[in-house]
Every structure is written in structure tokens, then in C-alpha cells.
């Protein structure tokens, strides 16, 4: 069952301070309200994975790995490969992260990242079919949260995208019921590059890319994932507060703008 969490008592003490600073058009880490933290992305740091990417978003650190294996297609999509996204909130990342089955926060994060990739049709899954109805490639994206300093969804979404563009798989032939792998490697058939941008509401102000302290005092957040043609492909509101329709429209517009630079940055890492 989904249950109300206890808000951090320390965060509640800080609430007014953080709110007052934002009202002056500033942030506790001296950013402007619509400034994104510096993003660093490194591709291919795990050699055994087909693809991998590590993202630093300020002090938030997320590692994503892609593994490609074969499996049976779903009955309703016999001609398509399979995408699965999973997220681990690793205990070493934060004092209250616990080992064990995924909780609602990691499930929500994984599903928001999954929706971005799936709905933007980032991977052409029809090219990952080996034998229709029998055998297809399965693309596993595993997101590892290594250090939690706020805005995990954006960091995870960009790490997942980085790992996908970095991924290499063996080229193959399918003849008389058998797969033959060739020596050469190929990239995943990518056709879109979804980037999530999260904004949060604190008091009556909206800011982008919250750090942990801001996230702990936020009333709610809205993630808007945009693909390469500025089309929005996924959204998710979270938290116990509410947005006015006007705030939502403003957040959508600014997220579309913001995602362009970040997308360019991630794609430019390939080659």
C-alpha cells in the first residue's frame, strides 16, 4: 500500500529559509530559479555492459548499464524487441535507502524513465526482432543511484539515454532457424533522444532541477520528458501539493526549451 512518508524534521526547519531565498529570485546553492546544475556525462565506463553511462548532476551521481540478451517476445508484439527499465536505490547512496525489493519511489522512477524511452520510440524495437513470435532481443536498462543529492529522475533519465546511445551489440544473421553472430558490432537502432526535465514548487515559486534540500521542502514536482522534435512524450507529477494549470503550462514550455541543450550534450558524446 502506498503510505504517507514522514517529512524530514531538519528540512521543515529549513523550509522558511529556502522559501525566502527563492522569493528573492535566488537559490541556496546560488543558482538562479531556472538554472540547471552542471551536468557531466561519461560513456562506456563499464566494459562488460553493452552500454553504460555515468551522470553527475551537481553532486547527484547515477550510473546506468545496458545489457542485451535474447528472449521471447510478448504475445501482442511478436515482431518487436523488448525494453525493460529497472532502478536500484543502492543503500550506499543515502542513509535511508534500504536493500530489498524496490519500493514505490524506485518503481515510479523506473517507470517514468521507461515511459520517456518507450513513448518517444527512442529505440526502433522492430529492428530487434530475430524470429517473429519466437525470439527477439531484450534490452535491459538498469539504473543505479550512487549518490543522492536531489532530482534523481532527470539524472536517471539522462544516464539511461547515455547508456543506450553508448550500447553496442554483435551484428547478427538469422538463417534456417539459427542466429549467426558476426564479428562486427553495431549500435542500437536509436531514433529519438528523450530528456526529462523536473521542476518543483516551493511555496508559490517554481524552480528547475531541485537539489536535495529543495526537494525535501517542495510541495510537488513535475517531470516533463521531451523528444528531439520538441514533442512531449511523458509527464509525471509527484508530491503532496498541487499546481495551477498556468504553472503547468509554464513548466512545460520551459522544460521543452531546457531539454534541447542537454540532448545536444548527450548526443555529442557519441563517437
Amino acid at each position, binding site marked *: 500500500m*502506498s503510505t*504517507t512518508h*514522514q517529512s524530514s524534521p531538519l528540512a521543515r526547519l529549513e523550509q522558511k529559509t529556502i522559501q525566502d531565498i527563492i522569493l528573492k529570485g535566488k537559490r541556496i546553492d546560488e543558482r538562479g530559479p531556472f538554472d540547471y546544475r552542471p551536468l557531466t556525462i561519461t560513456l562506456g565506463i563499464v566494459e562488460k555492459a553493452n552500454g553504460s553511462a555515468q551522470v553527475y548532476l551537481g553532486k547527484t551521481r547515477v550510473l546506468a548499464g545496458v545489457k542485451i540478451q535474447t528472449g521471447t517476445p510478448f504475445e501482442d*508484439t511478436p515482431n518487436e524487441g523488448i525494453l525493460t527499465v529497472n532502478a536500484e536505490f543502492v543503500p550506499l547512496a543515502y542513509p535511508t535507502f534500504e536493500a530489498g525489493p524496490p519500493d514505490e519511489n524506485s518503481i515510479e522512477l523506473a*517507470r517514468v524513465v521507461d515511459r520517456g524511452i518507450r513513448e518517444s520510440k527512442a529505440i526502433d524495437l522492430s529492428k530487434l526482432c530475430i524470429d517473429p513470435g519466437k525470439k527477439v532481443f531484450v534490452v535491459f536498462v538498469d539504473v543505479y543511484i550512487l549518490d543522492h543529492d536531489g532530482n534523481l529522475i532527470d539524472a536517471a533519465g539522462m544516464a539511461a539515454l547515455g547508456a543506450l546511445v553508448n550500447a553496442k551489440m554483435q551484428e547478427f544473421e538469422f538463417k534456417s532457424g539459427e542466429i549467426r553472430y558476426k564479428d562486427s558490432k553495431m549500435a542500437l537502432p536509436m531514433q529519438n533522444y528523450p530528456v526529462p526535465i523536473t521542476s518543483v514548487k516551493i511555496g508559490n515559486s517554481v524552480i528547475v532541477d531541485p537539489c536535495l534540500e529543495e526537494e525535501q521542502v517542495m510541495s510537488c514536482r513535475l517531470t516533463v520528458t521531451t523528444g528531439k522534435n520538441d514533442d*512531449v512524450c511523458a509527464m509525471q*507529477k509527484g508530491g503532496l501539493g*498541487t499546481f495551477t494549470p498556468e504553472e503547468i503550462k509554464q513548466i512545460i514550455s520551459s522544460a521543452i526549451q531546457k531539454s534541447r541543450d542537454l540532448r545536444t550534450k548527450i548526443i555529442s558524446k557519441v563517437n
Partner: protein
Amino acid sequence: MLGNKKEEKVRLLDDNGLRVDGRRLDELRPVKLEVGVLEKADGSAYIEHGRNKILAAVFGPREAHPKHIALADRAVVRCRYHMAPFSTDERKSPAPSRRELELSKVIRESLEPSIMSEYFPRSTIDIFIEVLQADAGTRCAGVTSASLALADAGIPLRELVAACAAGKVDGKVALDLSDIEDKKGDADLPVAFMPKSNAVSLLQMDGSMTEDELKQALDMSINACRTIYEKQKEALRTKYHVEREEAEEEEVAEVNA
């Protein structure tokens, strides 16, 4: 959720711009609401929204159990969204799926802003939503009915929460997608809204929409939420108005005796 949209192209709009079930683009499916449908729950409601059939029940405020989940300054709100195994085309395993776990969370977060939980420290308010038959838009119908169940339980609310989705079919923004439109359509945007507070408490989206389409769909679904909000109030009046008349009749009977 939207599965495979690529296979055979299905026409979702006819030459007159009408939809598969004959609706206009901005037309809601029929919505029927009933309050107080369960005997033992503190509050309950039933909704039929298109072919969705959903029961919602509320227990509480009651003592927090286990005790350690209690909060000192407010009630803990717990929510479970669940689909019956027979509610879908293919049997759904009764074990909670990742989808159901996520929806339980977003539904809780859509209802909590409306609950005056600060009046009930150390207690829990439990919300249970059972989808008996699913026909696209179950999370929205779930929110609409659960909000009524909260009111029926006598829990102080800031406002009722109404919910409805908009989406895109055959390239056109459309209200309240049906099952086939959801599966073959281009996008889905579920929204929960509190009209008096002008507050959106649930917002999700998947598919593909331009900025303008998205804004148009948002306005469309918010408008529909206002319509559903009126139906919610009507459903509450239907139950409690009758009861008051009965109570008054009893009073009169007592005075006369």
C-alpha cells in the same frame, strides 16, 4: 500502457469526425456515481465511467497499525489501487504489478492535498480502490470515486477531487479515451483537479504531443473535471438529502407520538 501502436492502422475517427463509439472529440463517456454502497466501510462509492466499473472504500480515521507508521502531526494516508483478475481481456494476476504500485502512489498524492489530515494525528486513513472492470481511464475514475468515499466517511475535505483524462486519437486532441482509443491512440493525459482551488493534483502523460496539443488537452480535461465535480456533488446530495428527509419525518413522527 499504450502497448504496440504500430501494427495495423485502425481508423479512430470517421468522416464526420466522430469517434469509434459515436462521441464527439470533446464528449465524455456516460458517468454514473453512487455513494454509500458498502455496509462495513466507513465510506464508500461506486463509479461507472464508460465501461469502467470501480468500487472505492475508506476506513478511518483509525488507530495507526503498525504503530511505527503513525505521524505526530497528521494522519497517515494509505492507498491501494488494485485490478480484479477478471477486469481485463486477459486474466490479470492478482499480485500487485509495478503499474498498480505506481498508480497507488499517484492516486494517494492526488487525494492527500484535499484531506485535512492535520486534524487526525497518530491515525491512518485507508483508501481502497478495486477495479472490477477496466475500460481505460481507471486511475481517473478511481480518484473520482475515492474522493466521494472520503466524503461519505465524514472525513473533512478541502474540496472534492474530480479526475478525467484527455488524449490524442488520429492526430486530434480528444477527451476521455476509451479502451481501443487508449491502445491505438497517440497519447493519454490523466488529470485530477479541484475546481474551487484551481489546483491540479494528478498529472501524467504518455504518448506524443506538441506543446500546443498538450495545453489544449490539459484545458479539455480540466473542463471535464468540472462536469464530473458537479456529478459528484449530485451523488452526495442524492444520498444525504434523502436521509435528511427521512430523519425529519422520523422527528415529526416522534413529536406526534
